């Protein structure tokens, strides 16, 4: 009885771990999901910047929204980067996505810092690159559903 319970526990623990990805398609799909999650964070940040530009929200609230958006994007990137790419082809996909994620996270960090410093007038300028990045991330997500 005890050995059965131990076996069940082991299965449960193993199922809870992130297993290695063995095919390009599965890896690409995880990349697509990551891009989708980051698009969500970026678009949230853009809405917050829009509220700031029109003086429609408090600095503290905006700082909170932007910090959470950055945290979500960072978490999505961290999860994706922890997955072992199975072959050279997936290396290229990984580089392509990281090429989008790195400037996105940098912009989100700039926004968070500016909002926390109370530099709300700077937010639209700092957010300018995000429109294009969001579009490219969305295209990536659509291509790798």
């Amino acid at each position, binding site marked *: 009885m005890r050995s059965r319970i131990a076996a069940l526990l082991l299965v449960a623990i193993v199922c809870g771990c992130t297993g290695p990805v063995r095919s390009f398609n599965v890896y690409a799909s995880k990349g697509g999901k990551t891009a989708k999650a980051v698009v*969500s964070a970026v678009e*949230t940040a*853009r*809405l917050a910047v829009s509220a700031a530009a029109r*003086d*429609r*929200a*408090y600095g503290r609230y905006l700082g909170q929204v932007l910090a959470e958006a950055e945290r979500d994007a960072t978490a999505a990137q961290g999860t994706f980067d922890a997955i072992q790419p199975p072959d050279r082809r997936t290396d290229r996909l990984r580089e392509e996505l990281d090429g989008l994620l790195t400037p996105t996270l940098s912009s989100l960090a700039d926004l968070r810092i500016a909002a926390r410093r109370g530099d709300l007038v700077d937010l639209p300028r700092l957010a300018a690159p995000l429109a294009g990045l969001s579009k490219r991330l*969305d295209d990536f997500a659509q291509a790798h559903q």
Partner: protein
Amino acid sequence: MRKVFEIALGILTAIGGFVDIGDIVANTETGARFGMSLAWVVVVGVVGICVFAEMAGRVATVSGRPVFDLVRERLGARVALVNLLASFFITFLTLAAEIGGVALAIELATSVNYLLWIPLVAFLVWFVVWRVKFQVMENVFGLLGLALIVVAVALWRLHPDWGGLIHGATHPAVPKGEGHPTWWYFAIALLGAAMTPYEVFFFSSGAVEDGWTRSDLMVNRANVYIGFPLGGLLSLTLMVMATLFFEPRGIEPGHLSQVALSTALVLGKLGLAVLLVGFFAATFGAALETALSCGYTVAQYFGFQWGKFVRPTEAPRFHLVTLLSIVLGAGLVLSTLDPIKVTEYSIVLSAAALPLTYFPILLVANDPDYMGDKVNSRLGNAIGSLYLALLLVVAVVTIPLMILTKAGS
């Protein structure tokens, strides 16, 4: 005149008290992912809670005893114990989520991490439960919860395409890129949020706390049949705002802060401030209700003296259970579990446990020994039985759907 005022106040507090963190999260997430295609579930949920809350209120009013008190007597100790364990667990999870929700609402106004607010929130919840009179507590937080109407004002100011929204709601279809299992999983979450068991425990125990008599049956009906649907309408406006602002942008909201963005964009700083007050009142009011419901269910099962209508020293075990629930609920959220995730699981698990709550109500409301001439009408029984069948199906499929969809992710 006094009766009219009492009915009006009851309706207003029922509206303001209807929405809690579960409704806020479920409606916003659903609108963002599925547009208005699941709006029908809110209608089904609101009709369901109306039917059963009216029964529970009527049982408490006629018999002078709340539902859980009668469950053990009617179903026996063992069956009632299963009912108690499931109901208590769900209500406790909801309490933890509400405490987290209050702390998150304060964080939005102060930028101070929500974890630092949790001990203070827990203390305030206990303090209000301990010191403040039931009617005062119910009215103050119910009325403050009306601040959430600001979302409806924002929606009105937005002049949306009502025809498109109504078309989306009346022609439900799974959006492109989403699977049927996930769509159904979110439908269950919405139903769980609308029919959360604690609402019935609190409502029926509240009827006893308020000292309702047969002459208050009208107040019961008005609260339930006017207040609850209007409260449901309020939660639907959250879904509409998410449909308009989040769905087209691909935003999947996972924070309370995101829910407020659309209202801020439409109404500005004043609208945002009112909404934050609404978040605070809705979650704090629900934290009080869930904390008391934890005490009510346990005390009523074991036959302890319960309620705020007696002095705390006369109901020590009831207050002890309530206090321990608050402390453990706060501890659960302090463990850094995301309060929004706790909310998501609490509403889905509550959907799985719904038959355990609502079957005994239907049973007792049909028992002439308790109800005399106020047993359910044929129509009431037909609707109640139909819902019970639906809730049984929901209970059976919830956990498999949770596993299949990885909790809707």
